[in-house]
């Protein structure tokens, strides 16, 4: 089911949680709402799910205005950050809940409920936990049960609010791959909120980058990483070095105040000047982290560090150590005028 959002606004007192949001989500897509922690992303999710009301703007499902429909009539599955499982019910009863509260005419009989619940529990690979209570499960198991519960009512749209936010790193990675596979099987239009860029880039078909209640960029994971539309996206997704035009005019090639954004892996290091724009620097620190080697350098007479990432192979070909004098030059970068930069949050 496609979702259309037009000029949506939501404020809490003077605080603008959502500022004129326009977004088109195609049927069957898996979308990540990515941004720093704050109320914007979750607010948007709750408004789509009918748990919150926008101050103005339009929300359409498959072209149909759903503003008048409350949460129970939207047929939306909602997965909460802290699972929100019914603590006094077994896992089985949690998943069966959506079926049991249906109006009498639509309610499946007991045998059918049993079949459906076990089918869903098998789907999330936790059928063996059917008789346990939520308090007896691990975080990852609880979240999978919460997902099974949301899927029980066969929702047209699945909304996940920081679904892996409360889990530890290993379980997170496992679960997000599993979510991706599940989505490829079920093709339910899904939106998940996250502040973890890696999670968004790995799982989503498209990423919506949000900051301070506004959408900064919408695109495939590749697009937002390779072609950030704004300085914020540049800084929020991946690491970046900033070069001011005042000091590095040879790179920014701008007359006014401007800043060049350069990814750490887009910088060449050489023992001799590559050309007349090369910057002489001193190697301060070398750290090997798995397959990449992170080198921190500082320009002569400057306290500012520049971060560079090299592949292990390239580093092994020309090893560096602290105190080496070398030259650097960006292979590719993007220049934003400083007027734009002033909107950046303190990063």
């Amino acid at each position, binding site marked *: 089911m496609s979702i259309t959002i037009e000029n949506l606004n939501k404020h809490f007192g003077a605080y603008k949680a959502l500022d004129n949001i326009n977004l088109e989500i195609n049927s069957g897509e898996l979308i990540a709402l990515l941004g720093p922690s704050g109320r914007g992303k979750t607010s948007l999710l709750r408004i789509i799910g*009918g748990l919150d009301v926008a101050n103005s703007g339009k929300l359409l499902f498959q072209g149909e205005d759903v503003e008048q429909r409350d949460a129970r009539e939207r047929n939306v599955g909602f997965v909460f950050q802290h699972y929100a499982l019914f603590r006094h019910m077994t896992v089985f009863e949690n998943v069966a809940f959506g079926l049991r*509260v249906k109006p009498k005419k639509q309610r499946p009989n007991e045998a059918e409920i049993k079949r459906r619940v076990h089918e869903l529990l098998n789907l999330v690979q936790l059928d063996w936990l059917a008789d346990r209570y939520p308090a007896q499960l691990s975080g990852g198991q609880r979240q999978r049960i919460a997902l099974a519960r949301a899927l029980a009512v066969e929702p047209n749209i699945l909304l996940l609010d920081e679904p892996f936010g409360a889990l530890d790193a290993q379980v997170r990675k496992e679960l997000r791959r599993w979510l991706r596979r599940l989505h490829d099987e079920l093709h339910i239009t899904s939106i998940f909120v996250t502040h973890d860029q890696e999670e968004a880039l790995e799982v989503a078909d498209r990423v919506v980058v949000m900051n301070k209640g506004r959408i900064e960029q919408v695109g495939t994971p590749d697009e937002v990483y390779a072609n950030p539309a704004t300085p914020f996206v540049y800084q929020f997704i991946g690491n970046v070095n900033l070069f001011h035009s005042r000091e590095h005019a040879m790179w920014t090639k701008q007359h006014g105040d401007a800043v060049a954004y350069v990814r750490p892996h887009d910088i060449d290091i050489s023992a001799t000047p590559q050309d007349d724009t090369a910057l002489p620097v001193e190697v301060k620190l070398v750290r090997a982290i798995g397959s990449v080697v992170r080198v921190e350098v500082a320009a002569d007479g400057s306290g500012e560090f520049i971060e560079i990432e090299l592949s292990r192979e390239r580093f092994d070909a020309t090893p560096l150590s602290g105190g080496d004098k070398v030259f650097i030059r960006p292979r590719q970068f993007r220049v934003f005028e400083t007027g734009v930069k002033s909107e950046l949050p303190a990063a």
Partner: protein
Amino acid sequence: MSNHSIQRIISTHESRSVTLLLITVALTYLVLFLGVPLFAVFYEALRKGWLLYWAALREPDAWSAIKLTLLSAAIAVPANLVFGIAAAWAIAKFEFRGRSLLITLIDLPFAVSPVVSGLVYVLLFGAQGWFGPWLQAHDIKLIFAVPGIVLATIFVTFPFIARELIPLMQAQGKEEEEAAISLGASGWQTFWRVTLPNIKWGLLYGVILCNARAMGEFGAVSVVSGHIRGMTNTMPLHVEILYNEYNFAAAFAVASLLALLALVTLLVKSLVELQARRSGEPL
């Protein structure tokens, strides 16, 4: 590691003499202020034998006082049950204008003297009160009658259940209710299937306390009752009348019933707590 744990045991344990002293002080205090009076009540009640005890309770005025006490508790507790759940639900799960005012109002009966609570009803519904003439014209009698006693009891026991539930419901948040609604449950279904089961132990606890206070209330009821024997006397009021008449045996007999009620309440309360802890749910 083992060294470390030995250290810890030592640092959190007082010496034997200090332990003994503290326990003695605490026990003496308990016996003196709680144990002795409780014993005295039963001792005095039964001093002249079971027969007299039995006769004192079966005396018509005493029997009518017992019935009136049970009746007012039977009305006040369910009334405050409904109100308590409704108020706690509203306060814990929603943000609205006047929320903090409502919380303050719920605490009012705790804050004012019960005598004042009773006087308010006399001023409102008494013969010289605001609504007195109207009530008289329609031949409705509230003050110095059973309805007044019930009203005063409801007022005094107003906060018990709500106060018990508000922090519990606030701690539980409203995510489970939101989950239920997004799964298609109606408001009633959400209440019966999600909210109520989550608060059942706290609710039971509140009901027990509310009931104990409803049966034991003296001040507010004393003001509105008018002390008409066999008509508007509750058990606590009856005890006072008997005592003032130097009828000690009968006074202590009725008082022992109230004390027994308190003991039963404490027993039930402990059982509820035990059961709640076993089921792993917070109280």
